[in-house]
């Protein structure tokens, strides 16, 4: 199993559009930077045929230190949820689980 990184995305952008590698890298950075900024402000981000990102507000709850069994409060916090689109899910299944219905 290989791992794709920013460098691979930069290379793909570089090959697709006639920009320098440096500028391609900056654009890749900007795309994820803008998505991050939008999410920080609590806004949902939807990328058609890929998926959507949204922020969920979690209330305080009581947790437990699994080692000592002590009760500790888990403070309210915001978590990011990614919901893949049907297009992406189907594409992955078609190539990795070709026998499944989806």
């Amino acid at each position: 199993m290989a791992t794709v990184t920013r460098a691979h995305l930069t290379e793909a952008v570089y090959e697709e559009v006639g920009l320098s590698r440096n500028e391609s890298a900056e654009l890749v950075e900007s795309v994820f930077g803008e998505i991050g900024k939008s999410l920080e402000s609590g806004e949902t981000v939807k990328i058609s045929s890929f998926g959507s990102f949204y922020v969920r507000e979690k209330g305080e709850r009581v947790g437990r230190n699994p080692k000592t069994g002590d009760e500790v409060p888990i403070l309210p916090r915001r978590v990011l949820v990614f919901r893949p689109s049907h297009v992406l899910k189907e594409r992955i299944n078609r190539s990795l689980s070709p026998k499944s219905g989806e």
Partner: protein
Amino acid sequence: MVKSELIARLAEQNPHLYQRDIERIVSTIFEEVSRALARGDRVELRGFGAYSVKRRAARQARNPRTGEAVHVAEKHVPFFKTGKELRQRLNGQIPPQS
């Protein structure tokens, strides 16, 4: 924010680029991530998050309405884990980006 709004924001920050090129850049990025996941690869974007694919084994399930047993085939689902930096940003532990 939807994809077209993302493209508009990037176009505003990059007045020297054609909007058409920005559209291609954004599409290329998500296409590369999708393609990697379809191969079963991981995509790791430090600070933002990591995408991976999880395998769900075939199982016997039940139609909750009829109680009938049904076979659910093996499937693969995309999974996203938020990066440390973005998670902290969402909780105001790192000052917002300019």
